[in-house]
């Protein structure tokens, strides 16, 4: 097989560009639809044929964050709305009686998602370094064993885990969910990071050992900064899994530690399923992962060919 190293021709570039654009539109369309639904009124959201451009309202977001009750006409008259969100609710003959559960559920997602990501990456880095650098008995078997936990869908062991969690009192706790997601992510994390650490030449650490540092200091001062790229990409993969996980969250959490994914579909308004509120929940739910990915993008793109060791 031969590879061309010449610049692609103009038509080739156009075709490639169009294909990428078409793919981009197909993937982003559902996302745009969810975002636009979150700004519709309940009637517009379920209108058929669907309305692409409809009246803009923040009603979905207000419903997402509040609980409301229906009011009599006199009561509405007696309590004029004080804020913009009061007004939206008021117009529908309702009054806000308090915040909804969404805020708590969202915070649960943040604690469990980032907590398990931190643990997965922290433990993964230490394990990967050990596998990469030390002579460990049965190393290959251990690595295969770690990988084998990924050879079936995690949910296949849902029943044993459910029973185990009940026995250990971990059901519906933050610690339990962090532990579970860390356990699932750890194999991915160890394997990914081992690959990255294998790429870092041992000479760096050896130089640091001779320069008067201990093994741990050499790891901390020399290996970690260079593994930043790998750690960032591993963290993104771990966070995306933990953040989006639905099945275990439904099974193992109900109140205290319930995350956003099982909560969002249960948002029900007075007149049935409140689609704009569900869409608003999904939209807000997307934000942390996107921000996290964008923040770490610099490390992802920095490339791995920046070493100063001549190969």
């Amino acid at each position: 097989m031969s590879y061309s190293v010449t610049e692609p021709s103009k038509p080739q570039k156009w075709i490639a560009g169009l294909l990428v654009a078409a793919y981009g539109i197909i993937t982003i369309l559902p996302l745009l639809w969810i975002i636009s639904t979150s700004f519709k009124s309940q009637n517009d959201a379920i209108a058929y044929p669907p309305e692409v451009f409809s009246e803009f309202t923040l009603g979905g977001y207000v419903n997402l964050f509040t609980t409301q009750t229906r009011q009599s006409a006199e009561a509405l008259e007696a309590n004029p709305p004080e804020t913009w969100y009061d007004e939206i609710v008021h117009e529908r003959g309702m009054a806000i009686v308090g915040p909804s559960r969404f805020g708590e559920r969202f915070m649960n997602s943040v604690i469990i998602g980032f907590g398990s990501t931190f643990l997965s990456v922290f433990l993964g880095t230490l394990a990967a370094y050990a596998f990469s650098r030390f002579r460990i008995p049965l190393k290959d078997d251990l690595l295969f064993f770690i990988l084998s936990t990924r050879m079936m869908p995690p949910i296949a062991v849902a029943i044993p885990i459910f029973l185990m969690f009940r026995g250990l009192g971990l059901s519906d706790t933050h610690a339990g969910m962090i532990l579970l997601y860390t356990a699932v992510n750890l194999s991915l994390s160890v394997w990914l990071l081992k690959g990255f650490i294998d790429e870092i030449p041992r000479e760096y650490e050896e130089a640091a050992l001779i320069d008067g540092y201990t093994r741990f200091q050499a790891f901390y001062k020399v290996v970690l900064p260079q593994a930043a790229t790998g750690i960032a990409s591993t963290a993104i993969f771990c966070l995306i899994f933990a953040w989006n996980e639905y099945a275990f969250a439904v099974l193992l959490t109900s109140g205290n530690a319930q995350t956003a994914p099982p909560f969002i579909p249960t948002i029900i308004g007075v007149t049935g399923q409140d689609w704009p509120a569900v869409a608003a929940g999904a939209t807000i739910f997307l934000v942390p992962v996107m921000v996290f990915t964008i923040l770490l993008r610099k490390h992802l793109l920095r490339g791995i060919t920046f070493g100063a060791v001549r190969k």
Partner: protein
Amino acid sequence: MAEVRLTGITKTFGATVALDDVTMTVPDGSFVVLLGPTGAGKTTLLRMVSGLDTPDRGGVQIDGRDMAGLTPAQRNVAMVFQQYSLYPHLTVRQNLEFPLKSPILKTPQPEIDRKVGQIAEVLQISHKLDNKATALSGGEMQRVSIGRALVRNPAVFLMDEPLSSLDAKLRADLRIELKSIQAERGATLLYVTHDQIEAMTMATHVGVLDRGKLVQFGSPREIYENPVSIYAASRLGQPRINVLPADVFGGAPARAVSIGLRPEMIVQGEGEESFVQRVEHLGDQTRLHLRFRSHDIVTVTDAHTELKSGDILRIRPHNPFYFDASGARLA
């Protein structure tokens, strides 16, 4: 500075014997060059002294202290690697400061600044101090790498082919620089190379390694003039020593199997006829490629020689080396 004493060092990696019972003393303040082709065990020997690897058998003493069980940091050695392994996430200055800031040395900042400035001056990298280590040329990287060893005052410097990646001019400059730094400080230096010019110009002692064995240890001159074997004789001398069957010239001792002829051991203009195949003018000298009874001989002649290929030249051995069947020198 200190004396390094190696006793019966043996190291195997799987089935290969990297070092085989090496015993050697590097005297205090000496510049010892380890010579040998790739795989002879030179780098492994350095790693034994540094503590990056531990011997299967035998021991290392530095300044009279047994090094068994001590980490590289505790041994107080500085090492320059063959691959310039600068810390790529740091600047040149931070690279040079790194050993001085170690928990063992904890040098105060004014002294760090003074030492780094001084070394940067010597190695001509002062103008690059605030560059990222990765933004340097190969030669600059290697100079920083050497600088990182020189900022310290270790018991012994270990250098693993530090000049091999540099161009000829820089190599010649740094050779002189290294030698004068070593002489000034009275530093003990263990230096690995396969470049015999480096060995001849810098070494106070040369150790010749052959497949993990130390076959000869002595001054460069001693090894050149009095090699113990064909192998040791072939390490030094440009052009290489010519090794021919002992009986091509008469007068070989009884057990001799080979005769070794350095260029200065071949008298030209008398003796037996050889055929000039090629004449190479190198400027300061001229090399002759001779054909003598179906054997090739390379020797040196006058820079302005009239000889040209196709000529006939008479040659005669003068005080040659004789070797037995195993390649060992016959006295």
